[in-house]
């Protein structure tokens, strides 16, 4: 799965693909497993655990067996890791002490989980008083000085790790409570939990079915890290002599002994300290690996990550006449995304259209038809791992597709402006609206600070923001959606662009606000004379503001013409079906004339007409071969064309019947 693409391509790539639901997760897990850090950690932990648990069988010597003739020996064939001050085998002592250390740490983690998970779930799911009380207790636990508490526990209950590690677990439970509480509260606000409540499921059942599975992964990660910490603290207690009485072996006491003997035998510190360091490191490595292997949330996949622009190699016949008054000429544009199994899959397939100065062109179509990718490729901002594979994007005579990133960057924001669907993505939450406008004004227009400030206020007034001076000092979160979109438009206007690309600029807004934004765009255009590409699925918006419309289906342009031509005499059955399915147009009661089926995925594109499977007029000829754009009227202002084998003869066939229903 190509990661980091925008929602539209995720939606296109998601359903119907031949992969099992867990695929993405297991693929990631496999990648993490392949890292040497992961399997080395796993291997080390396995060795330590097995060595400790089966110490009585595997250890080469009795851990208490003294050999006073060979004290402080280095590694040898008899004593693999040497001997200590009483001539006892270090390896055997480590193995026997390991069981105690691991069981103690395990006990601490187990206690932490047993307390943390139920209370965390309770606090996160119930909220209110339960949450307030549990959270305060957890905070108090976190404020406790661990070592002092443990010293007190040892003073009361005596040496031996059982009680002190239990106490440590209670203290550690605070971190688990907070983690589980946060995860639970996040899942609690998901609509599927609301739906389960409406379905009449009891709270415990909802928690087990919907909440717990989400909690397990972060808790596992935290457990692994906690195991390492517990091991360290436990060894600290052993080092201080607060572990089991000697001569019983434990790791901390071993280090203490090595420390006192450091002048006689420096080697002794290596195995005793080393085993602790390596084990703690391994647990931490494992925690990190688990975190990386855990499936990321939906949000991470849906945010568009821009990998940067990849310029096509220059070619010789790039010089096309640009003096026919066309501002932007897109020809044969192919945008591809890498496939899982290698190779590239085009999602935009041979798209071409023109934009003249001062003109508004609507890119229309359903989700997954490639309209956003087309618009973004003009800016050199193809989302994710996608890239322009073929074609030309001639802007004012220069081919943007063959331009290096550095030169293209000078076009963005200055000559080509961009408005996103979600205004908040265009505005940085950390800076005031004013400072966000001033910066590009200084960069693009070379104004000094005071003049840029004045121009920013002027721009905010221009986009219909009341009290612009005040809004200049406001932060994005203080604005409503409509106001934020106005500010985003002001931001796009700072460079006084010749072309404004607006990707669903009003979809997230109320209709009343949408109408105002469309009015605003119209008046700005009249005032500034800029051209506009409007990406939208809303035909009403196209009818309201566009001069020409380019209808896209499955990565291709299927029809283009002026809005009057498109809305009153559509040539392509897809355009007509789209028009008929809008409830605004539907004149009669009863079912809406919907288009059955869905847009085919790029990998399922047929060789012939891509709409044939959903078309009421399809014949065998439609699927036989790719259908070219049939130009009906090569008007100077832009052609009238459609990609339908009957585009020329529609009037003669049953155009009237279809039109009658519109």
């Amino acid at each position, binding site marked *: 799965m190509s990661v980091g693409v925008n929602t539209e391509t995720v939606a296109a790539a998601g359903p119907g693909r031949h992969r099992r639901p867990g695929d993405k997760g297991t693929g990631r897990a496999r990648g993490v497993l392949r890292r040497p850090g992961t399997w080395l950690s796993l291997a080390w932990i396995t060795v330590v655990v097995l060595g400790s648990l089966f110490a009585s069988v595997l250890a080469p010597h009795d851990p208490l067996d003294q050999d006073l003739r060979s004290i402080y020996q280095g590694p040898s064939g008899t004593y693999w890791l040497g001997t200590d001050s009483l001539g006892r085998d270090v390896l055997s002592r480590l193995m026997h002490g390991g069981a105690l250390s691991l069981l103690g740490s395990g006990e601490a983690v187990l206690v932490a989980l047993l307390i943390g998970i139920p209370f965390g779930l309770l606090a996160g799911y119930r909220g209110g008083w339960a949450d307030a009380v549990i959270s305060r207790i957890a905070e108090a636990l976190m404020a406790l000085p661990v070592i002092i508490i443990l010293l007190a526990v040892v003073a009361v209950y005596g040496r031996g790790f059982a009680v002190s590690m239990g106490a440590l677990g209670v203290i550690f439970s605070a971190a688990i409570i907070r983690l589980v509480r946060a995860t639970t509260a996040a899942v609690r606000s998901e609509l599927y939990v609301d739906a389960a409540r409406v379905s*009449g499921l009891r709270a415990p059942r909802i928690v087990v079915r919907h909440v717990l599975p989400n909690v397990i992964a972060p808790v596992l990660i935290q457990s692994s890290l906690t195991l390492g910490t517990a091991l360290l603290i436990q060894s600290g207690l052993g080092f201080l002599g607060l572990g089991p009485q000697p001569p019983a072996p434990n790791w901390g006491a071993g280090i203490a002994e090595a420390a006192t003997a450091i002048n006689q035998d420096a080697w002794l510190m290596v195995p005793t300290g080393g085993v602790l360091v390596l084990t703690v490191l391994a647990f931490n490595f494992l925690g990190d690996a688990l975190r990386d292997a855990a499936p990321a949330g939906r949000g991470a996949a849906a945010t568009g990550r821009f990998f940067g622009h990849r310029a096509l190699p220059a070619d010789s016949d790039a010089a096309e006449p640009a003096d026919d008054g066309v501002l932007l000429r897109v020809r044969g544009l192919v945008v591809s995304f890498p496939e899982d199994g290698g190779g590239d899959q085009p999602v935009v397939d041979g798209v071409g259209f023109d934009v003249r100065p001062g003109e508004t062109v609507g890119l229309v179509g359903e989700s997954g038809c490639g309209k956003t990718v087309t618009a973004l490729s003009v800016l050199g901002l193809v989302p994710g791992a996608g890239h322009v594979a073929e074609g030309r994007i001639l802007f004012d005579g220069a081919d943007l597709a063959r331009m290096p990133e550095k030169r293209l960057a000078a076009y963005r924001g200055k000559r080509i402006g961009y408005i996103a669907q979600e205004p908040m993505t265009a505005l940085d939450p950390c800076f005031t609206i004013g400072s966000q406008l001033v910066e590009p004004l200084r960069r693009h227009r070379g104004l000094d600070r005071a003049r840029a400030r004045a121009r920013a206020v002027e721009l905010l007034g221009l986009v219909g923001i009341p009290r612009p001076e005040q809004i200049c000092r406001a932060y994005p979160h203080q604005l409503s959606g409509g106001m934020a979109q106005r500010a985003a438009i002001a931001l796009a206007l700072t460079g006084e662009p010749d072309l404004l690309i607006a990707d669903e600029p009003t979809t997230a807004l109320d209709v009343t606000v949408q109408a105002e934004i469309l009015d605003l765009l119209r008046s700005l255009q009249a005032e500034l004379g800029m051209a506009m590409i409007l990406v939208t699925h809303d035909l009403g918006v196209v009818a309201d503001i566009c001069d020409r419309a380019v209808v896209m289906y499955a990565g291709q342009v299927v029809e283009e013409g002026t809005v009057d031509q498109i809305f009153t005499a559509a040539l392509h059955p897809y355009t007509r079906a789209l028009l008929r399915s809008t409830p605004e147009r539907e004149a009669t009661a009863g079912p809406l004339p919907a288009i059955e089926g869905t847009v085919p995925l790029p990998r399922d594109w047929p060789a012939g007409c891509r709409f044939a499977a959903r078309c009421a007029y399809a014949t065998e000829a439609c699927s036989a071969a790719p259908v070219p754009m049939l130009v009906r009227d090569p008007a100077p202002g832009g052609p009238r064309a459609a990609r339908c084998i009957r585009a020329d003869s529609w009037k003669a066939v049953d155009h009237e019947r279809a039109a009658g229903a519109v």
Partner: protein
Amino acid sequence: MSALLELSDLAVTYPAPGRRSAPLRAVDGVSLRVEPGETVGLVGESGSGKSTIGRAVLGLTRAAEGRISFDGADITRASARVRRALASDLQVVFQDPYSSLNPSHPVGKTLAEPLLRRKGTGRERAGAEIRRLLAAVGLPDDAADRHPARFSGGQRQRVAIARALAVSPRLVVCDEPVSALDVSTQAQVINLLAALQAELGVAYLFIAHDIAVVRHISHRVVVLYRGRVMESGPAAEVCLRPSHPYTRALVAAAPVPDPALQRKRRQVRRASVSTSTAAAVAVDGPGCPFAPRCPHTAEVCWSTRPAPTTVGQVELSCHRYDPGSGHPDAGAPLPGPSPAGNGHGRQP
């Protein structure tokens, strides 16, 4: 005959930021009825409280004042036990088909959830029932074994509808069920909801911001602004011949896919409001909430809350239509062309 769902003077409040500020009244004195087998549309801008009403009916949000009754029984402060019993009568379809289905459960497991809760439904019965449901919403049998990630937005919404209908409810709260969908998919889902209603006699409380969608599917429409009912009545009447200045503004603002008609409507739209939404300052005074944006205000609009007035088949909360209100133009028709639509609503 008693209504299936009846709200009287419902108010829902949220704590406002700041210790001393009065709570925010998201829903403020809303009364409405839904009859068995009927679709009532709730329409309004964001912040109008339409979704909050739905959540209050479902028991997901607590009502501060007023009464919610279902089939004659008061469920305003129903206990968890009563709510669970209600689950077989009252269901929901949410807007976001991506978050309303648990991504880690296959569709079959999601659909089995409400089924297995019923006594006497074994796994086998549930399996047959799931196949029947999937067929009813137009999904293939093998959909049960697939995870939500494998479905498109429209298909997921079909799954959500199947889950809502699994227990044969009498009322489904549809909270913006088609807003996240493409226009062609939207038409498919609207048709599905209408067909299921004709077949099963289920009633819908249909919440949406798109007045054309609401008109198409609803028998009656309730227009909300800032938590209050502005206008209510038969869908065709309210949406095609809107009376209240707010409904007029809403209808005029919705673009129609017809460039010539849209050019005319732009004029109507500009005449329908006095100021832009950005410039309108919300007032917390005692008057009409729409007064800051209304082109027909008089003094009374700022000082007195309008009382519901019946004009023909619709009920309006507007001083212009209330002869006793003291509005200087009360009773006279609103100036300017009405933002007439070009279609008809469903007949009840």
